[in-house]
C-alpha cells in the first residue's frame, strides 16, 4: 500500500509541476462558461441595414423611423436602385435591405394589397431569420395601429407558461453541456494522453517491471485526474449556480455522485483509448474524433436530437454525454431524484463496465 501511495504521489507531482497545463485546465471551464454566458447571444442589436425607398411617402418614412428607433436596426446606406443591393450585400456589412415599391403609400391608403420587401443576407442564416422576424413584428404593429385596434369576436387568449425556465435563459442548456464537455476533456483526453506518453517515452516498461501490479498502476494513474475533474466539475457547477443563476432544485449529493460516475466512465474510456495506441498524437486525435466531436454534435448539447435524421438519432444513444446531460438537467432544473433518472444512471454504469472489460482485454494481450 505504501508503494501505491508513493506512486500516486509521483503522479500528483508530475501534474502539479506543469503549471501551464494546470492553469489551462482550470482556465478552460472559466473561459467557456463566461463566453457562453455573456458573449454568445443571438439577440439582435444595431444590425446594419440599407434602405431602398422608391416611394418617398408618409407611410414609408414612418415605417422606416419605427424600425430605426427600435434599437435593433441602424441605417447604414441609402440605395438608389435594385442593382445596388447585391454589391452592398457582397461587402458583408449590410445585413438586410428594406424595399418600398413605387405607389406603396397609395396602395396602403386605399385598401389595396400594399407590400413591403425585407431582403435579408441569409449567408448568416440565424441572423437573417431574427432580423426579418423583428422587422415584420414592428411593421405589423404599425399596421394594427393604423387600423385602429378593432374588436375581435370569439377571441382565444393563449396563456403560455414556460415550465422549468420561465425566462428562457440559455444557461440552462449550456451549463450542463459545458460541464460534460470539460469533464470529458480533462478525464478522457488527459488520461489517454498521459498513458500514451509513458509508452512513447518508454517509461511504461519501467513501471511494468516495478512491484506494482497492472491494476495499481492504472488506478494510480487515473486517481489524480479523477480529483482534478471533480474539482473542475464543482467549479463549473458553482459558476453556473452563483454567477449564471441556474437553479439547483434537486439533491446536490446525488448530483455529485452522478458526476463521479461520469468521470469514472470518462477515465475508463481514456484508458481504453490509450490501450489502442503508443502515440500521444494518435491518442489525442482519437479522443477528439471518438469523443469530443460526437459529444458536441450528437449529445443534444447544441442541436436538438429529435430533429436529426433517424440514423444519427440511433447513434446518439451510444454517446455517454447524452445521458449525463439528461441527468444533470433532471437534477438541477427539474429537481427530480433517482426515481426518474435510474435508467440513465444504469446506462452509464453499463458503459463503464463495458469499457473496463475492453481495456482489460487489451491490456492482457499487450502483456503476453
Amino acid at each position: 500500500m505504501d508503494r501505491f501511495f508513493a506512486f500516486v504521489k509521483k503522479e500528483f507531482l508530475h501534474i502539479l509541476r506543469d503549471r501551464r497545463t494546470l492553469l489551462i485546465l482550470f482556465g478552460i471551464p472559466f473561459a467557456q462558461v463566461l463566453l457562453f454566458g455573456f458573449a454568445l447571444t443571438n439577440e439582435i442589436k444595431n444590425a446594419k441595414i440599407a434602405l431602398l425607398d422608391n416611394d418617398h411617402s408618409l407611410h414609408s418614412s414612418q415605417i422606416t423611423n419605427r424600425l430605426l428607433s427600435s434599437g435593433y436596426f441602424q441605417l447604414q446606406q441609402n440605395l438608389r436602385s435594385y442593382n445596388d443591393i447585391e454589391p452592398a450585400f457582397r461587402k458583408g456589412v449590410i445585413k438586410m435591405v428594406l424595399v418600398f415599391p413605387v405607389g406603396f403609400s397609395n396602395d396602403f391608403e386605399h385598401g389595396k394589397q400594399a407590400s413591403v420587401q425585407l431582403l435579408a443576407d441569409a449567408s448568416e442564416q440565424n441572423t437573417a431569420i431574427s432580423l426579418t422576424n423583428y422587422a415584420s413584428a414592428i411593421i405589423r404593429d404599425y399596421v394594427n395601429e393604423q387600423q385602429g385596434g378593432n374588436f375581435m369576436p370569439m377571441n382565444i387568449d393563449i396563456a403560455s407558461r414556460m415550465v422549468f425556465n420561465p425566462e428562457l435563459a440559455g444557461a440552462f442548456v449550456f451549463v450542463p453541456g459545458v460541464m460534460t464537455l470539460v469533464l470529458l476533456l480533462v478525464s478522457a483526453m488527459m488520461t489517454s494522453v498521459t498513458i500514451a506518453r509513458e509508452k512513447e517515452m518508454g517509461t511504461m516498461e519501467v513501471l511494468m517491471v516495478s512491484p506494482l501490479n497492472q491494476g495499481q498502476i492504472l488506478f494510480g494513474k487515473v486517481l489524480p485526474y479523477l480529483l482534478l475533474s471533480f474539482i473542475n466539475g464543482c467549479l463549473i457547477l458553482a459558476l453556473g449556480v452563483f454567477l449564471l443563476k441556474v437553479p439547483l432544485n434537486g439533491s446536490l449529493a446525488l448530483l455529485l455522485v452522478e458526476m463521479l460516475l461520469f468521470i469514472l466512465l470518462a477515465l475508463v474510456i481514456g484508458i481504453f483509448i490509450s490501450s489502442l495506441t503508443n502515440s500521444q498524437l494518435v491518442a489525442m486525435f482519437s479522443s477528439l474524433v471518438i469523443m469530443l466531436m460526437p459529444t458536441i454534435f450528437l449529445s443534444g448539447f447544441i442541436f436538438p436530437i429529435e430533429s436529426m435524421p433517424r440514423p444519427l438519432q440511433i447513434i446518439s444513444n451510444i454517446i455517454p454525454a447524452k445521458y449525463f446531460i439528461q441527468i444533470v438537467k433532471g437534477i438541477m432544473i427539474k429537481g427530480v431524484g433517482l426515481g426518474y433518472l435510474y435508467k440513465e444512471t444504469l446506462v452509464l454504469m453499463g458503459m463503464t463496465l463495458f469499457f473496463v472489460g475492453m481495456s482489460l482485454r487489451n491490456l492482457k494481450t499487450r502483456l503476453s
Partner: protein
Amino acid sequence: MRRILFLVEKEFKQIFRDKVLLRMIISAPLMQLILLSFAANFEVKNLNIAVVDHDHTTFSQRLAGKFRHISNFNFLGYVPSYKQARQLMLDGKADLVLVIPLHFERDLYRDNSATTQLMVNAIDGSKAGIANGYASTIIRDFNQDIVVENFPVAPGTMQQLTVQNQYWFNPKLEYRTYMVPAILFQLLILIGGLIAALNIVREKEIGTMEQLNVTPIQRYQFILGKMIPFVIIGLAQFTVGLLVGVFLFKIPTEGSIPLMYGFALLFLLLSVSLGLLISTLSETQQQAMFVAFFCLVLFILLSGLFASVENMPMWAQYLDTINPLKYIIEVSRNVMLKGSTFRDVQQQFFALLLIATTLLSLAVWRYRKTV
C-alpha cells in the same frame, strides 16, 4: 534548397508511416463536415404534445384534433389531470401540454373570449420559444376557423399590408449552406495549428530535435521544412472538403475558386505559424495540446461560427480583432455564398496577413537551435 526537400521528404515519410494518424487526419475533418451537415439543425420537429381537456365539447375536441395530423407535432393523447400532465413533463415525455379549461366553448359564445393554457418544457429556451410559436399558430388558426364560421365578414375595406421576406444567397435557409463554408476553413487551423505544434514538440520530447540541431540545417530551412508538408496536407484536405461540400451537400460556390485557394493558403500559413509558436513555448506534447486547444476553443466560440459577431458585447468584439478565424469565416461566407471579389474582402486579407506575419516572426524569434 535540397536540404529543405530532404526535410519535407522525411516529414512525409513519418506521416505516412503512422497509419492510425493518417486515418485520423483524413477522417476527423470529414466526420466533422458530415456530422455538422446532418446533425446540426436548429429546426424543431417531433414535438410531443399532451392535452388536458376539462371542457369535453365540440370546440375543445376540435382544437385538440388540430394537433393530431400535423408535422412538427406528435400527439401523445389526452391526460385526465394537470398533475399527470406535469408528470409527463418531468419524465421528459411531453414537450408541451395544452390545457383547455372548463366552459371553454360556453365562454367563447357568451363572453367572446376564453383562455387556453399552454405549458412548454423550457429547459432549452430557444427550442421552447419556437415550440410555443408553432402551437400558438395552430391555436390561432382554430380561432380564425370558428370566427369565420360564426361571423362571416364583409371583405376588403381595411388597410392591408403584406411583408415579403426574401432570403438572399440561401433562399431555403439551409443550415448546412451556412455552416459548410465556415467549417471548411475552420478545419485548416485544426490541421495546421494542432498537428504542427504537436509534431515539433514530439521531436523535442523524444530527443530527435537535438539531432536536428547539430546538423548544418539553418533556422529558416528547418521552419520551411516543417511548414511545407502541413501546408500541402491542409490544401489536399481543403480540396477534399470542397468537393464533398459542392457535390454531396450542393453548397453553391459563387466566388472564384483561385481566390478561395489563395485564402486557404494564407490561412494555412497562419495556422502553421501559430503551431510553430505554440511548439516553441511548450516542453511536452500534453502542454502544447492544451495550449492549442485553449486557443482553438476561444477562437471558435468567438469566431461567429455559431453566433454572429455583431451581436456580441463590445469587449468580445474587441477581442475578435485579433481572432484569425473571425476573418476567415467572414471571407468564406462572403466569397462562397455571395461571390464577393477580392476588393470586397481585402480588409480581411490584410488583417490575416498581418496576424500571420506577426505569428511567424514571433515563432522564428523564439525558436533557438540550442536546447
